[in-house]
């Protein structure tokens, strides 16, 4: 629907989006060039973009990007490995779920960043600590969505499979898991964004090993060109955009059959 509309609209959907971005950059450029704000605080957009471009091909900077991505990927993988099995277990038994609800409700509100100082004391400032914190924070949405997905399982779907003589393990493998998969994936998608937030937060607070946050702290002092700080933010935004974009594209590809996504086709 929206595709067809976009194709016939005057500038088109993509075109309008580009116009919006260009207008934003242009405005930022004018505001600084005209001297309305101090360039020491807000450098011209063109020089921020130029700096971003240079950083993206600078191996010394890319080491920091790789550091952030390593903690992000390992933490997310650990979270999935822990939260999906637990979620399947909690989701499939009402009694287990009820019993664990109180514990989950108490643990969930603890802001994960508050654990950073403690984690530094217990695990040091290395990769272990980063991965542990990223995993802790990103496990929650995966856990909740897995429980939800298992709970949403249609009893009639199970009856149908059983009526044709499918055994318990086959029902789990062929019916329960596929039907919960889109929910689990949604949890992973939310967790991917949270994992990036945590990875950067940990770097900002703990410093040490290479990472975008570490790099930004080092480049926020007096005398460092302001462009670098802005460029660092642009890169972290692009990273977030790329992660979310890939996750959404994967969702559309894998789960086109899910009613929730189907309506968007």
């Amino acid at each position: 629907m929206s595709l067809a509309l976009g194709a016939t609209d005057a500038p088109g959907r993509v075109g309008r989006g580009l116009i919006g971005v260009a207008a934003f950059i242009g405005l930022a450029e004018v505001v600084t060039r005209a001297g309305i704000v101090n360039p020491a605080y807000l450098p011209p957009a063109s020089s921020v973009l130029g700096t971003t471009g240079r950083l993206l091909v600078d191996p010394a900077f890319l080491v920091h990007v790789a550091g952030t991505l390593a903690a992000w990927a390992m933490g997310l993988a650990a979270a999935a490995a822990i939260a999906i099995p637990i979620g399947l277990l909690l989701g499939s038994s009402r009694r287990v779920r009820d019993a664990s609800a109180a514990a989950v409700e108490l643990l969930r509100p603890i802001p994960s960043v508050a654990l950073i100082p403690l984690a530094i004391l217990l695990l040091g400032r290395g990769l272990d600590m980063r991965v542990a914190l990223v995993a802790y924070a990103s496990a929650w949405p995966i856990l909740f969505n897995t429980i939800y997905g298992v709970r949403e399982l249609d009893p009639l779907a199970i009856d149908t499979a059983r009526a044709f003589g499918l055994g318990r393990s086959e029902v789990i493998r062929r019916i329960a898991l596929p039907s919960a998969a889109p929910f689990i994936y949604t949890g992973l998608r939310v967790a991917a964004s949270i994992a990036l937030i945590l990875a950067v937060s940990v770097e900002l607070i703990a410093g040490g090993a290479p990472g975008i946050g570490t790099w930004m702290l080092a480049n926020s002092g007096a005398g460092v060109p302001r462009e670098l700080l802005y460029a660092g933010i642009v890169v972290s935004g692009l990273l977030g955009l790329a992660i979310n974009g890939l996750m959404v594209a994967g969702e559309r590809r894998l789960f086109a059959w899910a009613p929730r996504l189907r309506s968007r086709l």
Partner: protein
Amino acid sequence: MTAVARAQPNASDGAGIGLRLAVIVGLAVAWELVALLANDPVYWPRFSAVAARLWEAWLANPAAWVESAWPSTWRLLAGWIGAVVSGIAIGTLIGLSASARAYVNPLVEFLRSIPPPALLPLFIVLLGIGDGMKVAMIGFGAAWPILLNTADGVASVEPMRRETARVYGLTGRDVLARIVLPSAGPRIFAGLRVSLSIAVILMVISELFATVDGIGFELIQAQRSFRMLDAWAIILLLGLIGYALNTVLGLVERRVLAWQLGATRSER
């Protein structure tokens, strides 16, 4: 524009009070036993010790309320309310116009993809290390889920509902206040829930940096002087605050969205 309405099961339904209390007591006992076995009171303090510290240093200590808890709480609430007001206002504007959505969509998608803590060094450079920086930080980071969910919710109001309103000659303001916003209500509240937990995270982060007061400041002090017992107590305290805020928001939501609960129930 995709929003981050996180599907969350209502964890509390069906659980008896007795069972839940038993689980909480069980967790506390388990912590106590593990700590006893670890026998390392500095790094792995017992639950009873942490709870006692939480009680004497925070809950039963008016000075801590005034000097630490209050500065944190007001910055949190000020930033979050700013996020609520601006998020709902801008989200509604964007949601009402398909054309506006087309123009700002990529920009919004980019801005909300920036991990909020990455803005911290910049906010410090721009606004210093005072309350203003922290409130702005919290507000900026927490506004996105509200904005996106509001825009999504407003944009997807059943056309039939708007047409009904037009048939009966409602004015634009009435349509907005009585049709569009209530219809978008569930989505907006989903955004509010996510944004509240982001606000708590940003409150803590902003206080872990260059600060002279607040709960986060106490936490980083405890870490620097290796006072594990205090660090654990503060983490429990933050959990309690988060739990309390979620509970209050849940009560407000139940009141405001009472119609929707009834509607979905009658569909079953």
